């Protein structure tokens, strides 16, 4: 544990401290990455529901690949895109466990599309956290299926041309058309109000699983300031001004 030099004076009570489900390991995300906020929200949700002892996370391939180091709960590192398939296996083998997968857009919406669609269609009783930052972050900023039209990445230096590379994949809208899922929502974390809303959605997605309601997916529109080549604060602005135009926020499917 890193030693804090500042001592809290007498007469103060904690308002916000690090969630118990997180370990002491530093996050390996870039400065200002929304992954950090989302990882923390998942840990806060696990703390609030008191399910740390029976939670199993599925780590993706991508920026969140080291999740097992950050959380104080069991983890499985799935092959690229196969997190939903691994989660299905664990949940079916031991239904008492709370199983969640945490995936990026390259993992869930590109190589893992089939696994995700079929897990959703079967209505598997799992929770999926889908971080949509419209780019392949870890590998250096290549175009993802969710990359916005005209958006510059290292593989689309002139901007994404929809005539050759297609249109951004709206995964949540697609999954909301199926009969299987019970809860599909899209959130963002660019300001405090939306962070709170995203947290509520994550808690609801975990509660659905505890109550046996079936497949829940929380998509979170995030920024990747490093690969957008902007400052973290400008990254937040980019989410509001660009990404939300293509990925509007809100609940897409709620089945009670």
């Amino acid at each position, binding site marked *: 544990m890193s030693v804090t030099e500042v001592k809290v004076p007498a007469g103060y009570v904690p308002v916000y401290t690090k969630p118990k489900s997180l370990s002491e390991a530093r996050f390996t995300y870039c400065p200002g990455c929304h992954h950090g906020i989302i990882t923390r929200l998942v840990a806060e949700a696990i703390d609030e529901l008191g399910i740390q002892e029976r939670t199993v996370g599925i780590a993706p391939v991508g920026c969140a690949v080291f999740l097992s180091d950050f959380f104080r709960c069991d983890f499985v590192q799935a092959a690229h895109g196969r997190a939903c398939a691994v989660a299905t296996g664990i949940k079916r083998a031991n239904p008492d466990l709370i199983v969640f997968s945490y995936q990026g857009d390259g993992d869930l919406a590109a190589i893992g599309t089939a696994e995700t669609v079929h897990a959703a269609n079967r209505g598997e009783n799992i929770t999926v956290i889908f971080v949509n930052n419209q780019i392949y972050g870890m590998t250096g900023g290549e175009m993802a299926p969710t990359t916005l039209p005209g958006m510059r990445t290292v593989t689309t230096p002139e901007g994404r041309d929809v005539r050759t590379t297609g249109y951004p994949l709206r995964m949540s809208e697609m999954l909301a058309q199926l009969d299987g899922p019970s809860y599909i929502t899209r959130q963002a974390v660019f300001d405090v109000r939306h962070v709170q809303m995203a947290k509520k959605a994550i808690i609801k997605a975990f509660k659905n699983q505890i109550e046996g309601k079936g497949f829940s997916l929380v998509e979170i529109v995030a920024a990747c300031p490093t690969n957008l080549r902007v400052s973290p*604060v400008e990254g937040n602005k980019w989410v509001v001004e660009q990404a939300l135009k293509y990925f509007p926020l809100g609940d897409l499917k709620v089945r009670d």
Partner: protein
Amino acid sequence: MPKGFVVIDKERCKGCGLCVAACPFGVLAITSELNPYGYAVAGVIAPEKCTGCAMCAQMCPDVAIEVYRAVKEGV
């Protein structure tokens, strides 16, 4: 005594500045102090203005901020 008190874990902080943008009272700023990983970390520049609203901690992507609030007298 200010209403709030912020503790920044300088080893976790990566100096992204999201807390500085989130603080409604200008309590925080990115300082010239470097941590062992080479990041210029956030610091408290106006502790007397802090109300303990924890908006900085809500936005921190590195869980580097802890927030404390003064116990109200007579409660």
